[in-house]
């Protein structure tokens, strides 16, 4: 069986290609920049290239990371299976008419997104978790004294704080709009597993925000914040609000944890407001340094961006693959696979996170057991082999 792999620069491709090989698939790789698959000016050319490639050989299916509507169109036209496994969330968005093709086999890692798309009548979509390659996470080695200073912590967080450009615009919101937005943000902070911002921020809502003063204020930032019509659109506002929720949550967590424990942040962010006690250690290379952080920190924090409503984020799997102790908010898709106190530590509030962090810092033997269980879980249940076998079976190829 032969697969045509549409390859862009997603980091999971090397593992997917390696695993397909191990599974016995022949592959032809078609590398192509992702922007050119989407942009109107270059899309048609890409589709022609893809069509030509498909005609060239007898393929069982075309594969890509993320759903790409241009690929779906070509595959539908050629009546060849199109299998895609989404790495981002949400991922099945643009060109809704292309979601319905019979040739599609769409796999998403957030069951909420899967349900949402299914409800619109799309049949060929399934929920499959993300995967991790434990072997690629070279985390266990002796650290030099300098490296210890850089990678060792009681509590670590690797990730953005999501301070967005939108924050610069907050002073220009009308008093009423500011109240409205803060209410929605604060309620969203209380709820995991539910994207309230998506439900509430609609065309009617945005009318309160787009006052003449605000429209004038956003002009200098228009391109940075994706405002092309002079007015803020609901989808753009939703993204900003979710990012500000992530920001607030992460700052609250880090601020409270750093009051009691040595806490490090690995990020491009430099704003120390509320985070005076946090050690800012800059960015880390995903492959060379991040595993060292995870394996040399006693507790590794995850706080899921709300755009991922139920799915298990890649970060969680990465931590566990590095034999790190993961402390995370609960995501519904963890149910049955990741269990609090067994292979992961789950918090439901900032207070609980502080309490549990303290407990596991004191009880290293218990923490080590969870670490090892977490590693074992991802090695067996979240390997690329396990997931791709699942995908190909559901797709009807195996």
């Amino acid at each position, binding site marked *: 069986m032969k697969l045509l792999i549409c390859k862009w620069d997603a980091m999971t491709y090397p593992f997917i290609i390696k695993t397909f090989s191990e599974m016995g698939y022949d592959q032809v790789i078609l590398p192509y920049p992702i922007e050119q698959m989407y942009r109107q000016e270059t899309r048609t050319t890409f589709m022609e290239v893809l069509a030509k490639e498909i005609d060239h050989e007898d393929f069982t299916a075309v594969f890509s990371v993320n759903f790409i509507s241009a690929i779906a169109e070509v595959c539908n036209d050629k009546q060849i299976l199109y299998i895609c496994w989404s790495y981002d969330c949400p991922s099945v968005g643009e060109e809704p008419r292309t979601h319905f093709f019979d040739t599609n086999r769409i796999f998403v890692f957030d069951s909420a997104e899967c349900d949402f798309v299914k409800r619109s009548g799309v049949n060929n979509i399934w929920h499959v978790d993300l995967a991790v390659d434990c072997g690629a996470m070279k985390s266990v080695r002796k650290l030099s004294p300098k490296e210890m200073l850089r990678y060792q912590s009681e509590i670590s967080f690797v990730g953005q704080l999501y301070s967005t450009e939108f924050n610069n615009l907050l002073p220009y919101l009308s008093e*009423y709009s500011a*109240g409205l937005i803060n209410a929605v943000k604060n*309620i969203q902070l209380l709820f995991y597993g*539910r994207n309230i911002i998506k439900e509430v921020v609609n065309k009617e809502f945005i009318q*309160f925000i787009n006052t003449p003063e605000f429209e004038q204020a956003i002009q200098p930032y228009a391109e940075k914040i994706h405002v092309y019509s002079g007015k803020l659109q609901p989808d753009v506002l939703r993204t900003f609000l979710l990012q500000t929720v992530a920001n607030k949550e992460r700052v609250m967590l880090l601020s409270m944890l750093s009051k009691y424990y040595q806490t490090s942040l690995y990020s491009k962010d430099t704003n120390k407001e509320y985070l005076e006690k946090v050690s800012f250690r800059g960015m880390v290379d995903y492959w060379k340094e991040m595993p060292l952080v995870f394996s040399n920190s006693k507790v590794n924090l995850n706080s899921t961006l709300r755009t991922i409503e139920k799915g298990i984020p890649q970060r969680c799997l990465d931590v566990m693959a590095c034999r790190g102790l993961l402390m995370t908010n609960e995501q519904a898709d963890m149910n049955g696979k990741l269990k609090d106190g067994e292979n992961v530590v789950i918090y439901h509030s900032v207070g609980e996170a502080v309490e549990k962090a303290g407990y596991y810092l004191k009880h290293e033997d218990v923490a080590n057991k969870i670490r090892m269980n977490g590693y074992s879980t991802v090695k067996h249940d979240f390997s690329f082999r396990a997931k791709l076998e699942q995908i190909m079976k559901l797709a009807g190829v195996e």
Partner: protein
Amino acid sequence: MKMLYFTWGYPYDKEIQETFYGLDIECIDIGTDGLDNIDQLIEIEKPDLCFSIDFNADLSDYCQMSGLKYISWVLVLPNLDLYTESIKNDCNSVFLCDSFLTKEFQKNGVNNVFYLPDAVSIGKYTEQRNEILLSYIGLRYESQIDNFYKENTRLSLYSKGYLDGLILCQRVLYGASILPHSIPINILQELENKVILPDNLLKEYSRFFFTDTILAPDVTYHEQQILDHQIYHELQVYSDQPIVKNDKRNMCLPKTQEETDLIYQSTSINIVIPEKNYYDAIPRQTLEIMACGGFVFSGKQKDYTLFFKNDEDLVYFEDDLERIEKLAEYQSKPEVRKRICESGYEKIKNAHTYHHRLLYMMSILCK
């Protein structure tokens, strides 16, 4: 046992009194006029306790002074007397139809507050006639908040925006009561400073007062606006005033319980909009429909999950998408609806009548 039964016009007093009689409890009626002479009445009748539907602060105070036990079953919300000093009287045993409110009082150290949902009388099971596809029976809600802002123009624009934001969020959150604890302290203080509050309101319940009188009714108002949505294009609306824009679908409120029951039985899918003053409570209307063998379609209320199974005894949804999906699904499945109606009816018959409730109440009181 002898009981002073305080009547104020609750429509189901007769059923409740009959049930008490069945439990060998004699009810002596006392109305609001009788409160001034309650001491005399107690002297003459020597009752064991005093009872009312809903908590009456004056009655509680009278009972406290007289040394008489006072039992109240709170079924009609909002019941603003709950937020007064009288709630702390030792004589009280307060049974609340709402588990959210019950926990709130218990958290604040108010003892002798118990959860006891509403109940209904039950007749013979009648199969659905499916003459009407969709029905909604309910009083029309007006938006209170604009009037509130007009009367209280010194309320800051920021606070108005914040409160409107809370209403929007609560509207989409079925099965989770986020009001009143979401009102921030600074906005609460602003409300307390700018609104004339009842004299005897306990400060710790002021957020409940504002939720009950301003915010919750607005959530219900917004929920009623959804009845104009395309998915409800065959809905018959029975109300005191027109709710939907298509006037052909607006009908008058039924005049009697029999007329109401007839509508429930004639309708394939009965829409229930739980009023948001009933935070987690099971709406009475839900129990009535089930007791008639009718099909309930409702936004989720948390207390449903204590007694009923979704899609087996009744049908509830947790978000707007699920509402659309389920409404379409159940319209086309008469046999499934029939099974749900039968199961719902049996559940009411076996555990949700006045007899069941009052037995439970007495068991608590006798402990």
